[in-house]
């Protein structure tokens, strides 16, 4: 199916947190192996609370204890269940790393971890930012690391994950984010999406990086610069073919991620380009290896230069 995006549609926003819960509510009605596990995350009136009421035997709130959540999920998966653990990204990706590494990944069981408040979207400051999940997860054997670029893609991913083998970490934002796509495409874990074609340069984004990249590409197109935008929603296993093709055909690659530039998407792409031996101008855009400042996500993306305007400046500099 063709992939289309429409700039006008990108003005509407939706929450991936709502979308994955709606999808889980739908799937749990018939798939009795699904277990939803949260860590003090089912306030009255929420969709999580609805899940608890509709499927009490498939619901578990472990309280504020993320390592326990992962261990229990691994125990469930070892017993043939399909657990989805949902909690704040920082406390899953960092606090529960030992359990993710050993109970999930080494045991090689299909636990799906959904870390919310990805990147700088939480508003809670550095203790509540999730800035090293890509780096950690992609360095753990057996793990799949995915960061959907919008809420609808997140729902597609949840469905696709049911038949995908092994452990998986899914990163989503805190609140509402722009919808990047219409819903008219097949989603495949591990297969990058060319959201916009172009031959002057390539932006490879993940998560919100795709939207920010498309904003930049749209503006640059008006100036006659055609930039390819690749949605690298799956950071591991990474789509090497799409990267090599982009390096070869455009000669300029900019990676955009709401993550520390150390060890994340940019590092993963650089590894592929270098090992392929393709000469290519290259720049990583993201959080510059600092504990980030305080502010709204949009303010922070602009401050660290990986919003649309910052990406435009960077591309012009590289094409200069």
């Amino acid at each position, binding site marked *: 199916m063709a992939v289309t995006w429409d700039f006008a549609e990108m003005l509407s926003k939706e929450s991936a947190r709502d979308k994955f819960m709606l999808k889980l509510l739908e799937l749990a009605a018939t798939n009795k192996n699904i277990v939803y596990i949260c860590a003090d995350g089912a306030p009255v009136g929420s969709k999580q609370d609805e899940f608890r009421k509709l499927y009490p035997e498939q619901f578990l709130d472990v309280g504020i204890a993320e390592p326990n959540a992962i261990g229990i999920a691994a125990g469930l998966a*070892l017993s043939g269940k399909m657990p989805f653990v949902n909690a704040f990204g920082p406390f899953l990706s960092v606090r529960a790393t030992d359990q993710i590494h050993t109970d999930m990944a080494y045991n090689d069981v299909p636990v799906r971890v959904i870390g919310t408040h990805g990147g700088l979207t939480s508003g809670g400051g550095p203790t509540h930012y999730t800035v090293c999940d890509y780096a950690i997860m992609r360095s753990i054997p057996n793990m799949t690391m995915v960061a959907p670029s919008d809420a609808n893609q997140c729902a597609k991913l949840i469905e696709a994950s049911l038949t995908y083998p092994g452990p998986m970490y899914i990163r989503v934002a805190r609140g509402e984010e722009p919808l990047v796509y219409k819903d008219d495409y097949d989603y495949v874990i591990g297969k990058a999406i060319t959201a916009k074609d172009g031959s002057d340069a390539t932006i490879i984004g993940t998560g919100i990086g795709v939207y920010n990249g498309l904003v930049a590409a749209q503006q640059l197109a008006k100036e006659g610069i055609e930039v390819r935008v690749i949605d690298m929603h799956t950071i591991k296993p990474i789509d090497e073919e799409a990267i090599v093709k982009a390096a070869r055909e455009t000669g300029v690659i900019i990676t955009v991620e709401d993550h520390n530039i150390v060890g994340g998407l940019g590092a993963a792409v650089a590894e592929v380009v270098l090992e392929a031996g393709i000469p290519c101008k290259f720049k990583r855009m993201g959080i510059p290896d600092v504990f980030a400042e305080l502010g709204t996500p949009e303010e922070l993306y602009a401050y660290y230069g990986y919003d649309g305007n910052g990406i435009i400046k960077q591309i012009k500099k590289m094409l200069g």
Partner: protein
Amino acid sequence: MEKIDMALVKRLEDKAADIRKQLIDMTYAIGHAHLGGALSMCDITVALYYHFLNFNPMEPKAPDRDRLVLSKGHSGCLIYNIFADMGMYDKEELYNGYNRIGGKFGQHPNRKYIEGFEASTGSLGHGLSLAVGMAFAGRMDRAGWRVFCITGDGELNEGSNWEAIMLAAHHQFGNLVAIVDRNRIQGNGWTEDTVTLEPLADKWESFGWEVRVIEDGNDMQQVVAALAALPPSDPVKRRKPICLLANTIKGKGIAFMENEPKWHAGGLSKEKRDECHRLIDEARKVRG
């Protein structure tokens, strides 16, 4: 109290002596093993695998099997020998495949290599959470099987255990039994000199568990009595999960290893191996 089946006790005592000798032989053959904690939990583990667990070595993934999660993964060497003794693989495979490239037998067990293990463990403080997950699955399925989790005492320093202990009590799992191998020694010395665990039974009780202390967890009669007295596993009925707090001796059965922190792990010369065998045989003779 139910009458103890003394023939069973005798059979399990003999088996525990055999397994100790096999563990010693393996240690001699491969040069190194975590002996201390394997010997302390030997009696209760033998009682489980050779009588109390619904476990068929020829069908280790049978859906209705009882689950045993070894939280103290470093004691996997004991269960390696039990599985060899049960005919799941031969000793040559174990000796040749221990801790070497292409081998299946690490210092900590890998469930993907050895089917009898329910989970790959090694990092301490993980087993109870895994066991709670399994108990939850058993409840979902209304399954009759039970989950046992053997933890060390030193590993109770890890906070993650207490997350699992608290949660298991909240959900009142009637299909979960924790066994604490209370040998009082952790890596570098006495638990009570490291971080005070006592009053340990009170801690579990205050967290909502029913604690049953086995005064001597290396006395097969007491072990059998405790395991025989467990209420039937019940996936639905809500009751306090049970903790068997088994007082044991690290290095039990080998006099020069008993209560010696340095025998947490080690190797054996041929002379030492022979001495170990002699000590085990003498103890068996004394027992009659």
